[in-house]
């Protein structure tokens, strides 16, 4: 039987009240943290292993996607002094049309590097549900391990929460074995209260991950919305025992930002979430900055960005 929601569920989700000032203060405190030496190296490596290497452009060509897959497997050609191999990225994230191409390079399903695809009329989501579900089914059949769906923001903002809920439930069903990440597109939700309500809704509907943004709308991922979403995940875990993952995406370009996201994550959700299975960065240029910082620590020379492959 399909999952349904009641009026009282909706009232409970919508009852979220976020104190913006306290959120800003807490974010400011986390962003002042300076993580150094060995801890920094370990966190940089962890962040690298959490990257969903992403390309979502109209100009994406098969060769670009192949290049991206190769980069996800071996982010850097050389080795570092401590002789541990650098981790691979967590996943490659592409448009549905590029899934077969990426599958060829990444090999079997559910390998060490996951293949994620955006679906449900990304990025706007403005298409009839039947078409969106068909898109999801075809994308999974083509070989996607993970589906990044967008919620129907128009319905959410119009207060038709049950409709948003039902769409997520239907999408989850269409995914079958594939993991479902639900993109809230927080830049369009307006307030942190809405972000909290949408997070609760998405998790109740069966999201495996909740994700901030498509990257197509500004502002994309911010520390503030991430904090609110992480708190919602904690609340959901404490009340249901279900651990939902988190993926901030869009605008995360610098290693330092990544370290601060990890600090926030560790503070709110603890060690259990400090793994690529539970936390991802939706990014592309972040990878090169992580490598740059790792090499700086390793070799003592601050690298030119020209040393790394352009993705």
């Amino acid at each position, binding site marked *: 039987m399909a999952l349904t929601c009641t009026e009282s569920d909706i009232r409970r989700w919508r009852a979220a009240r976020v104190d913006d000032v306290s959120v800003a203060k807490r974010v400011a405190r986390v962003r002042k943290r300076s993580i150094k030496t060995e801890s920094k190296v370990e966190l940089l490596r962890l962040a690298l292993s959490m990257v969903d290497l992403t390309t979502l452009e109209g100009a994406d060509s098969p060769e670009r996607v192949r290049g991206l897959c190769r980069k996800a497997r071996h982010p850097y050609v050389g080795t570092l002094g401590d002789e541990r191999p650098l981790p691979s990225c967590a996943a490659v994230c592409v448009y549905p049309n590029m899934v077969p191409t990426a599958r060829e390079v990444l090999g079997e399903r559910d390998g060490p590097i996951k293949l994620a695809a955006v679906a449900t009329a990304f990025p706007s989501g403005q298409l009839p549900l039947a078409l969106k579900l068909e898109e999801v089914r075809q994308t999974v059949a083509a070989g996607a391990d993970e589906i990044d769906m967008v919620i129907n923001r128009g319905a959410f903002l119009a207060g038709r929460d049950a409709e948003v809920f039902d769409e997520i439930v239907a999408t989850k069903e269409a995914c079958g074995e594939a993991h479902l990440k639900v993109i809230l597109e927080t830049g369009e939700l307006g307030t942190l209260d809405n972000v909290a309500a949408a997070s609760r809704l998405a998790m109740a509907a069966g999201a495996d991950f909740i994700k901030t943004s498509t990257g197509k709308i500004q502002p994309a991922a911010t520390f503030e919305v991430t904090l609110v979403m992480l708190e919602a995940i904690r609340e959901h875990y404490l009340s249901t025992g279900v651990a939902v993952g988190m993926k901030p995406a869009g605008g995360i370009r610098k290693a330092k930002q990544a370290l601060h996201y990890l600090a926030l994550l560790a503070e709110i959700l603890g060690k259990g979430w400090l793994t690529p299975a539970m936390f991802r960065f939706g990014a592309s240029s972040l990878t090169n900055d992580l490598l740059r910082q790792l090499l700086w620590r390793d070799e*003592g*020379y*601050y*690298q*030119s*960005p*020209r*040393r790394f492959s352009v993705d």
Partner: protein
Amino acid sequence: MSTSNRLVVEKTIKLYVGGRFIRSESGRVDRVRSSFSTNEIYVSRASRKDFRDAMEIARKAQAGWAGRTGYNRGQILYRLAEMIESRASAFPGETDRTQIAVDRAVHHAGWSDKISALLSTLNPVAAAYVNYSMIRPVGVVVAVPNPAEGLVGMVEAACAAAVMGNAVIVLVPSDQGELAAGLAEALATCDMPAGVVNVMTTDVPALLEWVNRHDDLDALYLVEGAVDDDAITEAQRQAARVMRRVVVVGSADQAAPPLTLQRLAEVKTVWMSS
């Protein structure tokens, strides 16, 4: 109200990076004796992190600066001369040297739309090709003028690098903070795009070690006497590691001749079927 009753407006001299006057991210300041009064002044001391940040900013600014016409770069350098001229009263006792600095900026402004004509060539080749060479900026330059040459040294280094279309970070010892601030204030008002010329007061020999370790740097412009010979040798050794250009010049007594300016550029040669 008599002047003695006035509240003293103390000035902390800031770094000039990306068109903004910023303190060091480290919060460090040096307390040094003023060159122009009996007071002591506070001068921000750039850290290696400030330098890395400035490198990113200079790198971003460089392409836009190089993309402007030589004529436009000349206009802006000429306006720099005007701005230094109007600030001459800020450097009492330095009138002569300030005038030389102004003249030097005018001199380089004049080269801006002529130097490429002088250094570019149509090459004779024994085949059915047109072959020509033209100059391109080398990229981001760190300039270390000789402190003994004061404002003239700073203006010479900054203008020589900038006129060739490079972005430049000028390193100045903290005890020359007032002169550096004078140059920075002139730069801020001369229509120079943010990030093209950056001025950082610091412990120069100490920061130079970190400069040597920044592999995104394209060229180092060192004036003899600015740092000791060992430091110059070390800079050359480290530069060899990444094929970085090191331009060592004797002094700022004379404006850089075209052949020195050429060392702040790359030569690009193009073959075309005729």
